[in-house]
């Protein structure tokens, strides 16, 4: 297991796009120390900020996180990254395979454009978790994003595929959703605003957009399958899917093939 230990809070935002288990496995510690990670003219390198211990394994641990560590696990295509602490924006963005785990909280756009693998955030996530970055066609695109704490607004904005599990989230969760599944303890106002397809499951929501209409309570095979698929990741969310639910159809302002399931209890 390779380890990077943060010496102190970075003086500027750091970009970890090229710091992955695969890239580090090809480098000596001296070569890794020269990897550019700074974002200012000062040209900070990995060795300027971290103590480096490499063993060419597929597992990387970052000891001591910071909200200034951007793009941790971005474009990851195998192996695992575990961050003991916080991370900045775009955690696991564009990731294809592998796993990224954060023991603290993440900044905005976690899992944006991720097509595979699993991203787990033990703390909170910022706005647009699983959402699309500026000008991107899609947010989460096939990966699994688990947020154990609270997510900000616009969770899963323009999400296209995959699964998001979250404790609670802010307003506009699942906005402009193309497809995929979001399961949440509770959501803020206007979930699914502008969604075309996809499934949102929540125990409670804030105000609903008037372009969502209630279509009754149903006992569908799909819900049992959903509960079964959620159980290994979160028994609480699985129990929610297995309980009595009211279905809302929307967003009727767009294609209207999305569905919002809210606990009927």
């Amino acid at each position, binding site marked *: 297991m390779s380890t990077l230990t943060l010496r102190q809070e970075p*003086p*500027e*935002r750091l970009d970890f796009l090229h710091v992955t288990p695969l890239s580090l496995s090809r480098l000596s510690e001296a070569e890794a120390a020269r990897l550019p990670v*700074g*974002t*200012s*003219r*000062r040209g900070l390198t990995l060795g300027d900020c971290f103590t480096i211990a490499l063993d060419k394994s597929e597992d990387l641990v970052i000891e001591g996180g910071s*909200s*200034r560590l*951007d793009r941790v696990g971005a474009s990851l295509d195998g192996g695992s990254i575990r961050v003991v602490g916080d991370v900045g*924006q775009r955690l696991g963005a564009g990731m294809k395979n592998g796993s990224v785990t954060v023991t603290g909280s993440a900044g*905005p*756009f976690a899992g944006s454009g991720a097509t595979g693998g699993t991203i787990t955030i033990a703390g909170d996530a910022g706005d647009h978790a699983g959402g*699309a970055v*500026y*000008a*991107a*066609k899609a947010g989460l695109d096939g990966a699994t994003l688990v947020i154990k704490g609270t997510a900000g607004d616009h969770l899963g904005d*323009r999400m296209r595929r995959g699964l998001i599990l979250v404790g609670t989230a802010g307003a*506009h969760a699942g*906005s*402009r959703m193309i497809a995929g599944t979001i399961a949440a303890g509770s959501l803020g*106002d*206007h979930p699914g*605003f*502008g969604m075309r397809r996809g499934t949102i499951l929540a125990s409670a929501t804030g*105000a609903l*957009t*008037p*372009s969502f*209409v209630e279509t009754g309570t149903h006992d569908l095979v799909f819900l049992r399958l959903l509960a079964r698929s959620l159980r290994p990741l979160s028994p609480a969310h699985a129990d929610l899917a297995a309980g009595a639910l009211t279905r809302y159809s929307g*967003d*009727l*302002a*767009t294609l*209207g093939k999305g569905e919002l399931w809210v606990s009927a209890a």
Partner: protein
Amino acid sequence: MAAWVKGGATDADAAVDAAATLLAAARTPIVAGLCAELSAVRAAYHLADAIGASVDPVAGPNLYAELGVLSRTGAMLTTPAETTGRADAVLIVGNAPWERPIVQEIAESAPTRGRAAGAERTLLSLGGPRNGATRHVAYPAEAGGLAVSVAHLRAYLKGHLAGETAYGDLARRLAAAQYGVVLYDAAELGELGVEMLQGMVKDLNEVTRFFTLPVSDPYQGRALLQLAAWTTGQAPRVGFGRHVPEHDPWRFDSARQIAAGEADAVLWLASLPAPRPDWLGTLPSIAIVGEGSPEATGDAAEIVIAVGVPGESAGGSLWNDRRATITYAPPTGQPAELTAAGVLAAIQDRLVQKKAASC
């Protein structure tokens, strides 16, 4: 008086030297505001490139509410001249557009060309002020806000909702128009609302001709956007820290950067009136502001330099709202001693001299 350093009046040369010294020592400087004539904005981008700064215009919220949608889904747009000449139905969304002269112009004219020529023009309002000053048919906004209101209206237009309701009536009026235009303010409507509105107008084009006319921001954003595109190939919020213009609207949001303690110096450029940010003066800062403005005092920032105001005490290329393009505005009064572009170029020259001297 044209310049101040740490509250004391001084000459422009000393202020330029102090500004260059401040910026040379910064790790992550910001160039913000950019509410100015194009030559000054261009000089600001060049200076930012030279010092590795990030750039964030005061027009950012308005521009990005529009740009995100434009880049993802496109937009159906028209001009003020086409609106006054052709539209038989104009829907005004929100409060902000009512403050613009274009509303009165639309209200006092009728379509004279195109398929609606000779028809009566109907002015419709969704979530407007309902002040009665201009004759129009008003529809109240939903409690959830303008974006939710537009979504509700669009559901009626698509036929997914039906009934004798206010929004059902508005949907019928819009679909019956021969040439319709929606007037809105992107910052007021928000990105989600703009995307919903543009989608609604595209839906309307299945049955008739319909376009949008977003009112421009008052801080030269439209002109700056074009300059940013031809200078960096990117939208305005870029950073030059890694020697190439990196576009990241979240990372280079100046208010966020300063709140997070990421910035250590800021240059505020506003030769035209712009709201003074709360953070100006809370970190080492340089303010290049229009002479006679409330900010042209020694306490606005560590270094303050007063420059000519384009269209008044300086000439400059500015956004022309009526013509929807950039035009030159000559000075109407006595030209000022300093121009913003000149001051910025002088700061950059001084930085080059300092760097050469240190080698």
